[in-house]
């Protein structure tokens, strides 16, 4: 829990909020059962609930004090930068036994479109809830622009980059063992552009159909999150509300399961959790006079 604690502490800078988080983490540690079993599962659930609650409650204070942009930037620094470094490190460490190494920089560049396409829903969310004073970005132009970019990314740019990645590795193999590898590399479902997938829809395999559906759903996520963010940021108490909702949406997106088979269940869970947290946030001000 100490590693999780140190990550969470990045998001909380207000001294009182940080103390609340530290004390919650201390309680979680002190309640940890010594052995694995049902008690351990119950402890995990209870601990997660306590940490989510303290993050939601302190998050509203953080956003009120420092603004959405500052908190969003902290999330980027705490999650995006380490994740990118991890990918880069893993890529740099990749070896192809018996072959000359593929150019690392080419492989890294080829992976970027895929990463950017995956981040577009989160970008849509952050841009929709972005506030500067009382000004917010207009939702409709935002959706048109972002969905357009995402459509181009998942439709054509990413498949081309994926194919480039595979070809680069294949060429490295061919260079080292020309008698073993020859010919060209056919495109798989992830390397086919949207227009190709549409063209072969009637006699395509299930894996290709799922690929097409997943890409269109990703575009839908961009639009849905931009609409949701736009609605929440225009509520009477946006600062409290949009942070609490954002915690769930962003955590859900970061889980990387947005377009898997179980996405409906995840979406429903995220929705319920979001509503509960919004209720929690709105109740913070509903206090009687003593």
């Amino acid at each position, binding site marked *: 829990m100490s590693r999780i604690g140190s990550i969470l502490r990045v998001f909380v800078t207000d001294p009182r909020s940080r*103390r609340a988080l530290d004390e919650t983490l201390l*309680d979680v540690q002190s*309640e940890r059962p010594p052995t694995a079993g049902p008690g351990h599962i119950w402890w995990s659930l209870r601990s997660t609930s306590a940490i989510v609650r303290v993050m939601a409650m302190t998050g509203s204070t953080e956003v009120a004090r420092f603004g959405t942009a500052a908190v969003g930037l902290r999330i980027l620094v705490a999650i995006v930068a380490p994740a990118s470094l991890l990918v880069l490190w893993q890529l740099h460490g990749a070896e192809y036994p018996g072959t000359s190494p593929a150019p690392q920089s080419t492989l890294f560049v080829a992976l970027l479109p895929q990463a950017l396409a995956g981040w577009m829903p989160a970008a849509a969310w952050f841009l929709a809830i972005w506030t500067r004073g009382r000004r917010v970005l207009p939702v409709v132009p935002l959706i048109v622009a972002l969905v357009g970019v995402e459509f181009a990314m998942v439709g054509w740019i990413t498949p081309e980059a994926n194919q480039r990645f595979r070809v680069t590795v294949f060429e490295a193999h061919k260079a080292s063992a020309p008698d073993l590898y020859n010919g060209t590399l056919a495109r798989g479902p992830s390397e086919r552009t949207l227009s190709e997938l549409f063209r072969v829809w009637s006699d395509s395999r299930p894996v290709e159909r799922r690929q097409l559906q997943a890409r269109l759903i990703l575009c839908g996520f961009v639009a849905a999150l931009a609409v949701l963010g736009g609605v929440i940021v225009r509520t009477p108490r946006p600062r409290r509300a949009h942070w609490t909702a954002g915690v769930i949406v962003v955590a859900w997106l970061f889980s990387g399961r947005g377009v898997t088979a179980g996405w409906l269940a995840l979406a429903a869970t995220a929705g319920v959790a979001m509503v509960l947290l919004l209720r929690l946030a709105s109740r913070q001000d509903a206090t*009687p006079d*003593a």
Partner: protein
Amino acid sequence: MRVAASELVILTLLAARPDAYGLELVEASRGKLKRGGIYVTLGRMEGKGLVTSRVGDAGKRLYRPTALGERALMAARLFAGQLTVRT
């Protein structure tokens, strides 16, 4: 000053057992207070001057009501008709 319902629960519990720590209050509240949220509320109450805290022997932070906190609790009880006023 506005005092939330959860803050009144904490003040009531602290009036009965001063020098209690967060988890102790959660357990004594029988579900009215939640893990995690309790510390945010206690921090807010400390900011309002309703409670004060110190670090105990076991490293846990112990809370007790201030004079203002006790007065706020009395006012809330009076308002709710829980306190009999003799004339």
